[in-house]
């Protein structure tokens, strides 16, 4: 196993760990807003690790750009969605 492969494997492990951490948070945290934290932050870290691992694996600049775009889009979407859902969760109707 080469160094790059080792790093890739490590990144994959990190990514999966963050995804699992996010899931545990979503399942165990007591209220909507803390669950939201768990979801948006952990999952995007996980995605980042995975994206870097995939970029190393492909080893191609053009593909790395596309991967970066995917991660950025997901990041922006998560940030915005978290904001909006958090506010929506404050309205009484939504907790009905």
């Amino acid at each position: 196993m080469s160094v790059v492969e080792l790093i890739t494997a490590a990144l994959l492990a990190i990514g999966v760990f963050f995804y699992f951490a996010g899931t545990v948070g979503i399942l165990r945290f007591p209220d909507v807003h803390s669950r939201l934290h768990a979801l948006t932050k952990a999952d995007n870290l996980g995605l980042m690790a995975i994206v870097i691992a995939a970029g190393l694996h492909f080893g191609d600049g053009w593909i790395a750009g596309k991967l970066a775009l995917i991660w950025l889009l997901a990041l922006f979407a998560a940030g915005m969605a978290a904001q909006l859902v958090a506010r929506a969760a404050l309205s009484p109707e939504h907790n009905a």
Partner: protein
Amino acid sequence: MSLAFDLALCILILGAAALAVFGRDLFGSIVFFIVYGVLIALAWITLGAVDVSLAEAAIGAGVTGVLLIGAWQGIRDGGGGEPEAPTPWPLHLAAGGAAAALCGVISFAVLSLPGHDGLAGEVPENQGALELGNPVTGVLLGFRAYDTLLETLVLTAALAAVWSLTPSQFWGGIPGPNHVKPPDGVLASFGRMLPPRGLIVAVYLVWAGADAPGGAFQAGTVLAAVWILIVLAGLRDEPRLSRLPLRALIILGPLVFLGVGLIGMLLGAPLSYPEGQAKPVILVIEYALTLSIAATLALLIAGPARRR
């Protein structure tokens, strides 16, 4: 490992579908339907059908989900729907029995399929004439272009059908609610940020579609999503449906497609492409279709006019 993944995916697909269809709460059902759409898109990836996966991700998970949300809202605000009269148990029993029988019969049919090569060999053999790298685009716009032509007109007809539900006092007006515009809110800034990127993705998809997975339908759907996002963020209002440029945009793609078919007819064979010029002609059709599909889908989701 791959098999374990496939198994897990199939079980999840069935579970998500069950929750979507049998959920008590309509809102939850729609959520699970979107989840289901994403899972189906993943299934198509593992089957190696990236073109279908793109279409399913864009249409099945994205647009249909948003469409259902809009319908749920409209039905709720109209005061209809939500409390569902319980269906009598004999119906459940009969339907369950019929469904089980159906499942058995179909599974039996699937397992007794003889197994053959289908048309997998024919496409690459003939693809050279179209100068396209992507066989699926070759089928859609070459070998079975007539299907695709009718399909785009199904979309156009669906738009006419949706418009036919406009209350008469609002005809030619603006669809959808009047979105409040918070100029510096999260939504607005996101709405400003996302469209250029969505535009890039859409252009890329239709450009790549000739030789790699992608194409007019996928790109048009992404463009439509961008359009709707701009409206939802309150940056721009929906256009007035009586506007001539809008209507011209809607018929542009089908008209170009139909026109190419008719020109081919005058030159000998309908829906054939001039020799050596197939690729540029197909690209022109694809670009025109992308624009029209985007407009049509966005207006389908917006629904009939609701304001003057």
